[in-house]
């Protein structure tokens, strides 16, 4: 579904991504974890075509839609308008802009349709951002920092929606997260990105037990997931 090979991205003289390779199979839910400044958002912006790579290869079979870090809604427009604009590139005309199919997946959005996006709570905005990405009918959903700045209960709710999408609609999910506990709970496989390089990858269970990863992301404990998100990961 997605193959990234030896990807290099530079901003001027600074190298943001240095030989990154990863792959996603159809229906997988894969995590990409790493600290601030590791290059996670640069990677997903490159996959979205916002950033041009200096070298390497990205093979994408299908459509990728991104839920960007910080939600990035159109604050002055209504929720319905935000959702409709998510279908801009779908090329399905007026029917493609009907948010009914997103309301089926995210029913909490329906009563918010007429509200201005800028007036919503953080959790509601994140849900709109997910809904807007879904309006593009993506084969791969790249979610950048789902949990950023949100209360644990709200994150658990959003995580449940993501899992349902993955399980029931077969949407491939790339979850880009600083919160490794959440990412490892939701996903079966993960990549660790540090300073623009993939430093570890494999099943989340194994990564969580790795002393290096545990020290960096779980405060030195190998007990892993902490507050678990109900449901766990599914097989691709």
């Amino acid at each position, binding site marked *: 579904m997605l193959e990234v090979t030896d990807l290099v991205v530079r901003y001027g003289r600074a190298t943001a991504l240095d030989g990154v390779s990863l792959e996603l199979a159809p229906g997988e839910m894969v995590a990409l974890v790493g600290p601030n400044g590791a290059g996670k958002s640069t990677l997903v912006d490159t996959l979205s075509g916002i950033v041009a790579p200096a070298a390497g290869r990205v093979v994408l079979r299908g459509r990728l839609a991104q839920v*960007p870090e910080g939600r*990035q809604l159109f604050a002055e427009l209504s929720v319905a308008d935000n959702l409709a604009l998510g279908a801009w590139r779908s090329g399905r005309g007026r029917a493609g802009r009907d948010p009914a199919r997103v309301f089926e997946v995210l029913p909490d959005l329906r009563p918010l349709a007429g509200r201005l996006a800028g007036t919503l709570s953080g959790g509601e905005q994140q849900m709109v951002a997910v809904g807007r990405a879904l309006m593009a009918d993506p084969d791969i959903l790249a979610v950048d920092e789902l949990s950023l700045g949100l209360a644990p209960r709200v994150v658990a709710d959003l995580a449940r929606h993501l899992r349902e999408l993955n399980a029931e609609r077969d949407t491939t999910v790339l979850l880009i997260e600083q919160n490794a506990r959440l990412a490892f709970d939701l996903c079966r496989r993960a990549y660790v990105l540090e300073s623009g390089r993939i430093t570890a990858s494999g099943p989340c269970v194994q990564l969580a037990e790795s002393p290096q990863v545990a020290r960096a992301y779980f405060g030195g404990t190998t007990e892993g997931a902490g507050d678990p998100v109900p449901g766990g990961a599914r097989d691709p």
Partner: protein
Amino acid sequence: MSAFLTYLITGLALGCSFALVASGFVAIHRVTGVVNFAQGTFAVVAGLMAGSLLGRGLPHGLAEILAILLAGAVGLVVGVIAIGKRGTPPLASLVITLGLGILAYAVEIIIWGDQPISFQMVPGSVDIAGAPILRQYLVVIAVALVTFAGLGLFFGRSYLGKALTACASNPYAARLAGINVMRMGLLAFALGGLLGGLAGVLVTPLQPVAFDSDVALATNGFAAAIFGGLNRPGLALVGGLVLGVAEAFVAGYLSGSYQTEVALALMLAIMIWRASRRVSVAEEPA
């Protein structure tokens, strides 16, 4: 009473012409974040072109439409130069539009000379409550109201209008959604050109237009646009009307030689008052 009504309707028409110029500023700024100081040029180009075409025997209607389309094309060219290079900061684009406006003087003098041009569009006057009002004033008011209603519908209801607003609201998210932000910016410049051109063909029958008329048009249009924060067409219309009526009353009851200065001072006072109210609200304890 007759004089008052004459000044009022004259001022409303004048204000509508300012508002049309302002709408061009707003259309461009709300999408691109650029203050387009070539906005007055679009009106001048259209006014001069319409006069030229009518002088060559083209019928009314066709001549004005062609002139407005030319202004739209000029707007597109200004847009290509001002924002065509990705990453150009809005301040740099502003300076580019200023430079293009000055460059336009030379082109306009070469094509149309340096003498003012005017033409008659809708001749005659009507009597309203004993006040003789030029029909052209009523045309300006009617066209402006229809244009602003259309702009409101376009930005508020149409998918394309919302995509244009999205580009201004969050260009990064717009790009993620697949919207070509650059193309939308150029569309906004073309729209700004059309709106400026519309103002130009409506104003030229009332006041002769020359190559350097852009300064007065842009100054008043910019003041009206600022009233709406350069982003809200409805408030720009209100700003234009306040400015136009103030100018007409100053010219009628005091002196025409400083009507613009007094009207702009009034606008400044209103904006300072509005800004101070916002601060007061912000300072109120929660």
